[in-house]
């Protein structure tokens, strides 16, 4: 131990351990809740509440869809669109957000557009996108791009302008110039903000892709639901909905895991 005994010691691992058993208990509760939900669903459909398929029927449909390969190809089509639009959106948003945060001139020029387009739900752009870009992949990816871009750019910009002045000063007095401060202080300091934007951006990308496919697509989970609606195929709609939910959840978890790794240094209150 150090020769100087500070009154407040470093955070003890014992505290973490005490919290450690909680997730297991939470997991049990979560599983119980899900089983309970499926039980109620079964009960409600068995009694004959209008139109809803039973859990078993939905499960059978899921198995059939997987076996026919349709579910996989639909999920892959939706995922591909989301990833293309999302990655493009974030890749453009981060440098633009940094520009806005670092250079007041860039901020003045870009901010009105960002703020204006932010008030328009990306879904509202779909009709325009279809008219101007046709019904291929481009308009869908563009709309997703827009959704991801707008959330991430605002978060990045916020991150840059809220970098602690003291940290910048600390770097300056150690001899750092603007470029070094930007690379070694501003970028890491704004990572937590960027990750919040990325997470929200992924959520809105996923929401947008399904809606875009409902309107105009020949593949994808949204398209499959649209078909299910036409043919009164409720199990297929359920299977698509559940798949959308699961994939969205998995993607969100991946972003959370990445966030944990990138911002593990943060002091959480």
């Amino acid at each position: 131990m150090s020769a100087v005994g500070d009154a407040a010691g470093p955070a003890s691992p014992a505290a973490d351990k005490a919290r450690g058993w909680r997730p297991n208990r939470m997991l049990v509760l979560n599983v119980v809740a899900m089983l309970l939900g499926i039980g109620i669903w079964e009960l409600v459909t068995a009694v004959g509440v209008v139109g809803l398929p039973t859990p078993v029927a939905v499960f059978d449909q899921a198995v059939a869809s997987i076996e026919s390969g349709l579910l996989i190809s639909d999920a892959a089509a939706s995922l591909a669109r989301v990833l293309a639009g999302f990655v493009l959106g974030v890749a453009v948003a981060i440098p633009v957000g940094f520009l806005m945060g670092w250079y007041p001139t860039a901020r003045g020029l870009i901010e009105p557009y960002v703020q204006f387009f932010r008030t328009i739900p990306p879904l509202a752009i779909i009709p325009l996108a279809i008219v101007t870009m046709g019904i291929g992949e481009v308009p869908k990816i563009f709309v997703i791009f827009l959704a991801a871009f707008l959330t991430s750019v605002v978060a990045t910009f916020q991150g840059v302008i809220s970098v602690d002045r003291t940290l910048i000063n600390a770097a300056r007095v150690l001899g750092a110039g603007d470029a070094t401060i930007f690379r070694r202080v501003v970028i890491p300091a704004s990572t937590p903000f960027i990750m919040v934007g990325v997470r929200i951006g992924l959520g809105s990308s996923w929401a947008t892709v399904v809606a875009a496919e409902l309107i105009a697509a020949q593949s994808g989970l949204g398209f499959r639901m649209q078909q299910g609606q036409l043919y009164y195929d409720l199990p297929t709609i359920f299977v698509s909905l559940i798949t959308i939910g699961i994939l969205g959840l998995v993607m969100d978890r991946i972003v959370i895991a990445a966030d944990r790794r990138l911002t593990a240094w943060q002091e959480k209150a």
Partner: protein
Amino acid sequence: MSPKISFKDVSRVFEVSGRPVFTALDRLSLDIDDGEFITVVGPSGCGKSTAMNIAAGLLPPSSGRVLVDGVEVRGPGPERGVIFQQYALFPWLTVRENVEFGLRLTGMPKAERRKVADHFIDLVNLGHFADSLPKMLSGGMKQRCAIARAYAVNPKILLMDEPFGALDALTRVQLQDQLLQTWSRDRRTVMFITHDVDEAVYLANRVVVMAARPGRLDRIIPVDLPYPRTEEIRLSPEFAALRNEVWRAVYHPRLQQSA
């Protein structure tokens, strides 16, 4: 001998849309000798932090100038190390990486950098925490890391802005003693801002007392106590007398003037 740091009629006026609204510092003139330990004490609004930031090159003066070794300060520089009250450690870097930060900027090769960093980490007794992130450290350990980071680039001057202000009383005393030990060895010039009268007297060769509204120099009180300063000195009548003198100067400036 010419002074190490020289404030020459330094003023700082804060403006709102071009109109002066607040004089943070009014024509401060002060010479600090090489190797001297100066503490600056005064009520809030007396401009003590403003003066330090101007000397650090983080804030330009509205008029007047600060000379370091006879050269006018025009911005921050590694020969003036700064310790902030809020530690200002880079939270995403480990203790060692924080200490290496300034060394990296000088282009020092990696192996040497590490050697220098580890030396200063040991000096502040953080050897076991070299690979820890700041979030794992207590307040006192964070400030020791910040001190190691400042020492690592070998500044000729240390500018310290209430560095121990956020620490508990015991940790503060320990860090004061460590700081004095290091200072006795290397005799870097120190300008130490504080609002703690005890701390001001205990550390300094001279206590600079400032007054508020507008922030200005009130008086300079020499501290003729020997180094090393010890518990004994802290409890001595001479210390008490100086402490009272500084206290009265800080908290009852008008009373003193009329007396």
